[in-house]
């Protein structure tokens, strides 16, 4: 068993570091409904960590706990070894956590470039007045941020839609734009909520390649929720499996593939 500070090298040559985030005995309730029941797992630096499970297993709730949007009634989230206090969304972003959403949450009327630029908002320090007259620091900041945005646009190969309003884009591209907006804030942890939902095979392949490239190129730690088992098994280093709010498996893709509890949950057995 690895210690929380140990690091190791994967088969494909990536270095996975120590634990950056640890979920300890998390329980989340909405009134009488228990969405997450006593779940513990950790996320290591530089790894791709998947959370899978059937519909209603509590995956999205779990992601919301990780992102700090939901505060669990029991248990605690340790970030870099320290308990994390309740935070506002911008404070989460400032900690270097970015996310995408299951049902795309972009500004539909704005162009791709403007949408991506919003991801840089919390990196801008110049005042309202400076930005309005666009002098000095504001101008310099805008240029720096635009360069960052352009690098991500180049990285995700969306140059051709740079000036296109998001509303006019097909679904697969919108997903990519959302990823761009998350990436441009230079997160250390990236949370992806069903990045491949509703995509065709080709779009899924593109998205998988981008996720791997992001992890490889920027060393970003990625936690993702996904339905498509094939994708999850190919992409991730470790997988957490949830069913009815409980953790029923945790390990490498091959461990999970041979886990009886997981097979039962996916193929279905009679619940007593």
């Amino acid at each position: 068993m690895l210690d929380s500070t140990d690091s190791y090298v994967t088969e494909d040559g990536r270095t996975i570091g120590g634990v950056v985030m640890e979920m300890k005995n998390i329980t989340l309730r909405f009134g009488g409904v228990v969405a997450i029941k006593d779940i513990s797992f950790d996320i290591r630096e530089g790894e791709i960590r998947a959370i899978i499970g059937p519909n209603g297993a509590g995956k999205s709730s779990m992601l919301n706990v990780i992102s700090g949007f939901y505060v669990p009634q029991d248990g605690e989230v340790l970030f870099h070894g320290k308990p994390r206090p309740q935070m506002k969304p911008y404070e989460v972003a400032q900690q270097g956590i970015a996310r995408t959403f299951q049902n795309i949450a972009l500004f539909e009327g704005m162009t791709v470039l403007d949408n991506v630029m919003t991801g840089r908002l919390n990196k801008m320090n110049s005042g309202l007045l400076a930005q309005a007259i666009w002098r000095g620091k504001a101008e310099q900041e805008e240029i720096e941020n635009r360069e960052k945005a352009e690098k991500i646009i180049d990285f995700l190969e969306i140059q051709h839609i740079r000036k296109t309003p998001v509303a006019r884009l097909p679904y697969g591209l919108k997903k990519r734009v959302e990823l761009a907006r998350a990436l441009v804030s230079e997160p250390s942890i990236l949370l992806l909520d069903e990045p491949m939902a509703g995509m065709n095979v080709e779009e899924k392949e593109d998205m998988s390649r981008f996720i791997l490239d992001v992890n490889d190129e920027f060393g970003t730690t990625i936690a993702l929720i996904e339905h498509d088992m094939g994708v999850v098994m190919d992409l991730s280093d470790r997988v957490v499996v949830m069913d009815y709010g409980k953790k029923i498996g945790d390990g490498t893709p091959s461990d999970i593939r041979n886990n009886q509890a997981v097979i039962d949950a996916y193929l279905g057995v009679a619940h007593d």
Partner: protein
Amino acid sequence: MTQTSEGVNGLTSVPALLQRNAAEFGDKAAYREKELGIWQNWTWSEAADEIDALALGLLTLGVAEGDFIAIIGRNRPYLYWAMVAVQSVGAVPVPLYSDASADEMAYVLDHCGARFVIAADQEQVDKVTDVQGGLSQFEQMIYLDPRGLRKYDHANLHQFSKVQDAGRAALSELMPELNRRREALNYDSTCVMLYTSGTTGKPKGVVLSNRNIIETSRHSSEFDSLSAGEDILAYLPMAWVGDFIFSLGQAYWTGFCVNCPESVDTMMTDLREIGPTYYFAPPRVFETQLTTVMIRMEDASPMKKRMFDYFMAHAKKVGPAILDGETVSGLDKLKYKLGDLLVYGPLKNTLGFSRVRIGYTAGEAIGPEIFDFYRSLGINLKQLYGQTEASVFITQQPDGQVRSDTVGVPSPGVELKIAENGEVFYRSEGTFVEYYKNAESTADTKDPEGWVATGDAGFIEEGTGHLRIIDRAKDVANMSDGALFAPKYVENKLKFYPNILEAVVFGAGKDRCTAFINIDLTAVGNWAERNNIAYASYQELAGHPRVLETIQEHVETVNKSVAEDPMLSGCQIHRFLVLHKQLDADDGELTRTQKVRRKIIGEKFEDLVNALYNGSPEIYTETEVTYEDGRKGEISATLEIRDAAVVPVTASKIAAE
């Protein structure tokens, strides 16, 4: 053949032209490329420095004179530099199609025995790595974009910029050698080797000398009085001879600027931003642009639509005449000016054609409506006829003598003759040296006197001296009753409809003609949307009864027009079907330059061809398709076969011929 002096002012190689340009136009832009949303600029002297650095770097890697170096990637300044750097060290650049599959690349790399490969990115590196086991002469690879390649084994893999750095570091040591090699180049040394796409069989390596390229560039630049002030957009495959002539030959001869798009998908935006003055596009591009314009006009407000229709009708009437400098009444001229202000100008600006002084199209026949549309807007679009073996130019249209049904008069320095069977022959200083390692094919194509068979049948029009091409010589055949069968002639008429992307006509040795049709997804898809026709796939749309009805109308109109030509009236289409898949180069149905491979299609879809002739109303078929990543799959469909009305042809008419 006329022998000219050995190069003008001793400029007998492309590297020599580069040095002249660096001296003469040192501060003028030579290359531009959009990067991270901003146009980057390199002057001729900067380009010369970059090329020298790379050439020196190639020396440090041990490139020998006479080596073949493959260059694979989309149009980027760095890769153009690579070509000239390779030439500078006495090696031969071999640009390859970047969308070629690994197997296709393996054939070419093996055939030319490339020791080095310069690849654009991870995708190309992967392809070469996949096949390098079978390549005995392959040694090292240079890549341009490091993304995704950091963890690759770098024993035989070098980053482009690092090679340049190594070259710069070895400047004092290796410069004498570079100069020696550069000076050893002469008019007869090989400038480039280009592989022909090969409508038949394996690709052949066409060896072109400095004489071929420079003389052709000189003649063609003078023909259109190209100057150092031109801007072109380099977006066509680097492996294609046209791009080599336009973006390298002519650019180096005249010293104009080559602009490279940001990515393949941004070409249209980049075109608009650059506003080239000299522009080449195959008919397909012009067709697509026109289709886009028409689709967008359908969605425009009624006022705009009426304005567009009104002024376009006027442009059709007087536009070409104004462009050719003919006299037009004052009122018409005034109206055209107003139209230019309100419609033509903004439209040209949207298309990126505001500054186009000379535009060319070639490769396939262009529809008269499409051709006239652009000319009526005041865009000087002309046709040329050429091939790789001729360093492009065989014939081209001079200003003021432009028509859609001819390909123009012989280019300067080109002689033409028509053989008895109608095949067109030419000879010129652009005529290729040989097919590499293929003396047999060379002898078949080029006779001892230097005449080259084009493989196309055509005739020279009396009076004007313009060449008209009918079809590929080997495709022109007879039907069972002896009537002339020229499939391309009919296919082109069909393809002029925006709804029809591709057509393949059968009928050689048969009693009547039949056809496969490919619908154009953009045009038909938009039509379906406007008519509330739901469809889930290409296949479903292609088989929709209302689509079939529309296509049938087109076929019948074409039949009427074909019937008017007594020689070709037998080529009317009796039965047709709409294919369930788009013909694709990945499936071997088209060449990489998007030309139909008639024979392969006939064999692959034999069941469908049989069904066209045996009278069955529909046929079930299964077809293997290749996905972009090389995996194969299968699709199946039941296709409806329709009969089209034909205009009766009297026997006496045929006899009279």
